[in-house]
């Protein structure tokens, strides 16, 4: 046993996806495009128009972009740490990461909204944005003599904070009612508009476009480069290429961290140009990595169901399950930290974001809106329940429970994005997410279909990686 031989690949491990996968991919793309058209139709019919479709599209673009970025992160980080165990399953992450050019194409509608939407999606993109008193995004200069009338009886802190900003909030006295929350938030935003001009140099159309060109170029470049070289190992010098990819992983991770942070600011934080959170980037990253691990687990399970990758064992699922568990907790840690800092500081320019999502005791009732329920679903469904039930090691090795939690967490990750984006459109309660789910099918159909087509172009396992034997023989001691 000391001289045990490293296991070798079986023939089925090297099998490529066939015609069935290709037709699945093409069907998926067609379904996706049809669903996107249907989403526009439903949005128009339900009175949401292009505005609701835009928010729904950003929700789902952000969702699938996060999975693609999570795949890139897993590729980079497994190279950075020379993770031997991951080699047998890494090709899946490489294919996900190499799907980034498709996400670049799917980004075009967002750009169209920026250039042609006149602020319907991103208020800062409106032509009238810089003009004072334009619609409900009116700006109030600090020191302006704003009429001070306060009917709020619930919170001393809000009044104090508002006085600090040289303006008071006019609210109609309807504590507990939906109108109360909504008008309160609108007034808050109006008073806080003076914070926006400082962001003006950053939130401009050309700079937004330039940044996204840079992000997508870096991500696509890294994703394609890693997949290309991983495939090249099968016919070339595997050790040399592994060294090269490992060397690139260090600056690659730095670039990844910077770009994902600013991309998250741009894509979802700037939907509301008043609000800001310095933890936003890492919050988006935490969900991304979680979702990518979940997708890897499901993709591997699905492939094995069709007889591919027989050498991927419970040991690999155990490790992916550990990562899944870790990112559940990491997401909770970051989400709570972001909430607690904002809640503790209690500054009106940031805390209204949570008020908008029903996390408030304004009006005396902690359950002020429909979004309150969604927030609680996230607390329990995205953190507490999966944390407790993913804890035992046998769950991570189970072929029934691990995919169940992967599906569960992907659903929760979607709810998270829905909860981030849609309150900008519908407050104080969510609408039935018809357009949003059609967009999920739409963006998802195109993104998943293209990823499957990409997966048919090479083998499903990194057969040329010099650490493959180590990965196939990998055993978890505990």
């Amino acid at each position: 046993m000391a001289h045990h031989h490293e296991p070798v690949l079986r023939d089925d491990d090297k099998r490529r996806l066939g015609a069935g996968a290709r037709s699945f991919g093409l069907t998926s793309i067609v379904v996706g495009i049809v669903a996107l058209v249907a989403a526009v139709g439903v949005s128009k019919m339900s009175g949401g128009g292009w505005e609701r479709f835009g928010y729904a599209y950003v929700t789902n673009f952000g969702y699938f972009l996060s999975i693609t970025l999570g795949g890139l992160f897993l590729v980079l980080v497994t190279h950075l740490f020379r993770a031997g165990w991951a080699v047998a399953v890494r090709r899946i992450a490489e294919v996900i990461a190499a799907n980034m050019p498709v996400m670049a194409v799917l980004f075009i509608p967002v750009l169209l909204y920026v250039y042609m939407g006149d602020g319907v999606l991103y208020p800062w993109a409106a032509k009238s944005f810089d003009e004072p008193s334009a619609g409900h995004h009116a700006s109030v200069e600090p020191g302006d003599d704003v009429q001070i009338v306060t009917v709020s009886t619930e919170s001393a802190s809000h009044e104090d904070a508002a006085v600090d900003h040289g303006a008071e909030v006019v609210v109609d006295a309807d504590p507990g009612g939906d109108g109360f929350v909504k008008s309160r938030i609108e007034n808050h935003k109006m008073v806080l508009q003076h914070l926006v001009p400082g962001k003006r140099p950053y939130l401009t159309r050309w700079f937004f476009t330039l940044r996204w060109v840079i992000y997508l170029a870096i991500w696509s470049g890294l994703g394609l480069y890693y997949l290309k070289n991983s495939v090249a190992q099968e016919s070339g010098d595997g050790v040399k290429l592994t060294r090269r990819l490992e060397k690139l992983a260090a600056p690659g991770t730095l670039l990844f961290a910077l770009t994902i942070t600013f991309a998250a600011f741009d894509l979802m934080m700037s939907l509301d140009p008043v609000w800001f959170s310095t933890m936003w980037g890492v919050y988006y990253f935490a969900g991304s990595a979680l979702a990518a691990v979940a997708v890897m687990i499901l993709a591997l399970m699905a492939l094995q169901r069709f007889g591919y990758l027989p050498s991927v064992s419970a040991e690999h699922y155990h490790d992916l399950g550990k990562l899944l568990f870790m990112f559940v907790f990491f997401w909770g840690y970051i989400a709570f930290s972001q909430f607690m800092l904002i809640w503790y500081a209690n500054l009106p320019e940031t805390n209204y974001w949570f008020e908008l999502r029903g996390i408030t005791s304004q009006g005396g009732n902690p359950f002020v809106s429909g979004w309150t329920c969604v927030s609680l679903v996230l607390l329990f469904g995205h953190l507490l329940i999966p944390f407790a039930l993913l804890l035992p090691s046998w769950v991570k090795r189970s072929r029934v429970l691990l995919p169940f939690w992967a599906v569960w967490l992907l659903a929760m990750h979607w709810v998270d994005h829905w909860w981030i984006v849609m309150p900008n459109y519908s407050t104080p309660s969510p609408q039935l997410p018809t357009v949003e789910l059609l967009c999920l099918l739409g963006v998802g159909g195109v993104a998943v279909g293209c990823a499957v087509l990409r997966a048919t172009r090479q083998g499903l396992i990194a057969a040329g990686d010099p650490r493959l034997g180590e990965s196939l023989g990998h055993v978890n001691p505990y």
Partner: protein
Amino acid sequence: MTQVMDPPSLDSATQSPGKLHGVIAEFETVNDIMRAAKKTRAEGFKRWDVHSPFPIHGIDAAIGIRPTILPWIVLICGITGMLVGLALVLGTMATDSIDLPGLPGAAAPIRGYTFLISGKPFNSFPAFIPVVFETTILLSAFGAVFGMLLLNRLPKLANPLLKSVNFRRVTADRFFIEVQALDRRFDKDKTTEFLKGLGAVSVELIED
């Protein structure tokens, strides 16, 4: 080749004949020790171990090492830490007054520090979570470290096996099976014969 050596071979003058600790059997190769370990396990011994210069792939399964109970110790410590943390923050920060009439000496009601912090209620749970989290982690870590030491009976300043000269090669090129006298199936003569039968290079009785 097989020989039974009498215990203390080294500085026997200072040694008084002590309690029997157990018996060790020496093997030359990994394959020998793996085969012997499987047979020893099959024989039904419970208090025995394999000593080796390096980790042997698959030896845990051959010995039949059961999962440790350490996670349960850590869980209990973690829950204790959580309750302690909750009691601490709620008792000091969120307690207006608690009457404990039954408690001798507690004439006045217990009062917490009713600090008004940025207009929040005294019982502001989000602010308490970091404290509760930290005490949970602290006691869990204590449970893990001290539980591990306790389960391994550490610190142990001396091990009777170190008295054996033959056993010194366990750090270089030999493999040993140790069967402790505490085992219910242990019998000085029968166990020695059994180990000899496994193909040991040497079998040695160890006294405490």
